[in-house]
């Protein structure tokens, strides 16, 4: 499910997920509801649509196996239009076999450890006085900030992307969609 983020929704979701006083929930078994909330498909299994360029790149780098594995990962998927914003010919060059190392590094800059909801980012932004940092598998760190109702992610080079839809839960992680391609850290 792709739902545009609103901070109100983020705050309400947050209230029932990530914080709260310690209770006897600590001894409860895994939440069936939480498990059911995740889809049956893996992240790689969900490809098809406006993520085809990311999917093709994942396949070319062998990272499709990662995104079909146990995870859990948070994946930031730039839309096809976002890839179209790259300089002319750059994606074609990256897709060539001798550019796989660069393409792998680019893609891993969009993969994060664990499962992070938009509400979690919003909460961390609040706690971080307006910004939160997220480590990526690309070796860098993204900075998250707000712009109105949207969350903006900024890479180490200053490039920015907006989370345009969020919290697509899969069996091995969660997917957010971006309107831009982030540079490796």
């Amino acid at each position, binding site marked *: 499910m792709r739902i545009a983020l609103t901070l109100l929704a983020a705050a309400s979701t947050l209230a029932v*997920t*990530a*914080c*709260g*006083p*310690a209770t006897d*929930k*600590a*001894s*409860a*078994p*895994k*939440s069936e509801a939480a*498990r059911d*909330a*995740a889809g049956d498909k893996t992240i790689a299994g969900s490809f098809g649509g406006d993520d085809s360029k990311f999917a093709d790149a994942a396949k*070319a*780098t*062998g*990272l*499709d*196996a*990662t995104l079909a*594995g*146990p*995870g*859990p*990962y*948070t994946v930031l998927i730039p839309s096809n239009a976002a890839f179209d914003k790259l300089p002319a010919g750059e994606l074609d060059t990256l897709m060539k*076999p001798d550019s*796989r*190392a660069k393409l*792998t*590094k680019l893609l*891993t*800059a969009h*993969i*994060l*450890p*664990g*499962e*992070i909801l938009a509400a*979690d*980012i919003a909460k*961390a932004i609040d*706690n971080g006085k307006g910004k*939160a*940092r*997220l*480590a*990526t*598998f690309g*070796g*860098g*760190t*993204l900075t998250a900030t707000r712009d109105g109702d949207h969350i903006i992610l900024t890479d180490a080079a200053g490039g920015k992307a907006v989370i345009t839809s969020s919290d697509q*839960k899969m069996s091995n992680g*969660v997917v957010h969609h971006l309107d831009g391609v982030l540079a*490796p*850290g």
Partner: protein
Amino acid sequence: MRKHLLAASAAALILGAPALADKGGGGHGNGGGQAAHADRSNGGNGGGQAMRAERGGGGNGGGHQMRQADNAGRAFRTERQPRGRPTFAAATGHDRGQGHANREVIHAERVQGRERQVALRELRGHSRAIEVRDANGIESLRVASRGFANDFGRGRGLIDGCPPGLAKKDNGCLPPGQANKLLGARLQQSFASSLLPYQYRSWYRDDPNYLYRSGDGYIYQVSRSTGIVDGLIPLFGNGDYYSVGQAWPDPYNFYNVPYQYRSYYPDTSDYAYRYGDGAIYRVNSGTGLVDSIVALLAGDLGVGSPLPVGYDVYNVPFSYRDRYYDTADNWYRYNDGYIYQVNPQTRLITAVINAIV
């Protein structure tokens, strides 16, 4: 842990000396014994505080109850000798450990009237956290007042513990080809008591067959029975991955998948699974070429280390959120198959409380 901090470093002298060598017998026993983990088969094992916890300084010792596939076979390497150069390095020549590399400087300081040398190493992902190693191994963590580079000088230190020229190589500080010489030889005495970096202590634990030690940018798998280095695991990463189609380096060709992932990735007749540089790779047993990247590992969190700056955001998998949620007393963060407990005040990682993959 920070009692030697900053005041001493302010008066310290930065030397351009080689990396500080560890001496054996430093009293860092590796028999931790508290390093037990719950795996998923244990199911509802109670709350975070009630779970078996690995406390800092536990070392690499036994006592863990991780699922361990006895899968030390070498699927496509049948002969140890002769050994060629690391084929990946030769094939690509692209740099590792560059750009985001950990810096290290040798640092002289005066403590209780006596001068000593310690190696100060910037931890990946931290601008201010510094791992302090003395002659006996990892001693403590410190915080740089203005960041590692500002406090200790950009360019004056070592990169990943290596001189800058050798830091560009794919095999630690060693000149090309030298890594081969480590295999089949007795472990260098100076590494005999060198514990693994915090981040790797949950990945490789001493077991009845092997000890795991580190030094010069490697983890060494050492046979208990012979004392011989039987495997090398390079400590690199930072986003530089092996690519599909590249040959898997022969010196690193042994079953080295971190324990928490072994049930997912046992070797088969067709494929071998190998860890290196931040990922687990599937390698075609027939060709020896990387077929795909099957898992990414950050190597960022470890008990006793500070929470890196990139972990501001709660990231515990959904299925565990009803048990591990941030409170005023404890935070929880996920990394590489484990959920870690963090002290919000100190931001130090205090325990690994669950293995979930």
